[in-house]
């Protein structure tokens, strides 16, 4: 199955990257779920939490306070002003 190549970057550092099955984010309009094969999209992130289900391992939660994300060719780039990984999954 196709998977998403996810990359999360904050203004001054790199946060997380890896393969994922689903990315759930909150835009200024509402929640959005990105599955592999999603059409190209550029959206504004709202303040809050987004969750990523990686191919291996447990769900990752990231708190962002604004930013945007882009989806193209199964590549998801989340650009946050300030991103914080919420659990100890990140090694």
């Amino acid at each position: 199955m196709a998977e998403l190549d996810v990359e999360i970057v904050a203004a001054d550092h790199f946060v997380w990257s890896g393969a994922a099955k689903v990315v759930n984010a909150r835009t200024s309009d509402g929640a959005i779920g990105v599955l592999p094969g999603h059409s190209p999209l550029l959206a504004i992130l709202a303040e809050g939490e987004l969750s990523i289900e990686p191919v291996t391992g447990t769900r990752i939660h990231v708190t962002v306070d604004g930013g945007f994300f882009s989806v193209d060719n199964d590549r998801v780039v989340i650009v946050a002003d300030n991103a914080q990984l919420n659990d100890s999954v990140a090694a």
Partner: protein
Amino acid sequence: MGAQIRVYRQKIASTTSMRKIFKAMELIATSRIGKARARVAASQPYAHAITRAVSAVASQSQVDHPLTTEPTQVRRAAVVVMTADRGLAGSYSASVLKQAEGLIELLHSEGKEVKTYLVGRKAQAYFDFRSRAYTRVWTGGTDAPEYSTAQEISKVILEDFATDFAEGGVEEIHVVYTRFKSMVTQEPTVVRLLPLEVVEEEETPATELLPLYEFEPETEQVLDALLPRYIESRIFAAMLQAAASELAARQRAMKSAGDNATELIKKYTRLRNTARQAEITQELTEIVAGADALAS
């Protein structure tokens, strides 16, 4: 005669202690350059992502955004000058200021008014000493810039950019900073920040075509949210480059100061030895002459 030796001894002692300071500062700068360069590298993914997104929006939409529209005439320009907070960095601040002076002169000759925004205590001192006006100054932490400072700077200049000319607004924004090319070359650079020309630090391969994006919520809102971030990221990148350059310049300046101190110590040691030898010779001559006088 004895006085001469004492003077040399004092000079040697003071130069030695100065050399210790230079060495220490050189080491500090060296250790911090690595960190500064790592921060430049760490900010790259963000800058890339944002540049890519901005290019995508800019290339696909015909939206006229105030930040990207070229004004019909430019009557006032803003210049942001990024220098160091502290000296002892060789010509680092001086060359940025020189570059800025050149730019200001050029803008004046084009009939534009110039508003200056300063970063770093050295720039402030330079302008204060010449009693020249500046609009705003940010000091502190030029060698380890914070993202919040970049946000503040961009907020101020974007506000000015949005203001009408009649109310003191600007129609063009330039940034003068030092680009970190390598450990040995840093060059003062002028960048026009606004109106925006989307520039990518590194060229993307031509084969990689930008896909047709959907925008959420609306193209205009996306641009509204993206462009200020893009400006912030450009300013932050400039600040990080300037910080790395400052440290590299300081390291080099301190290295040559240390080397010069070593040279000086060598020279004074020789002079001291000559003086001591001259004194001994004179004493001997006096003794011999005295004995001769008694014997005859």
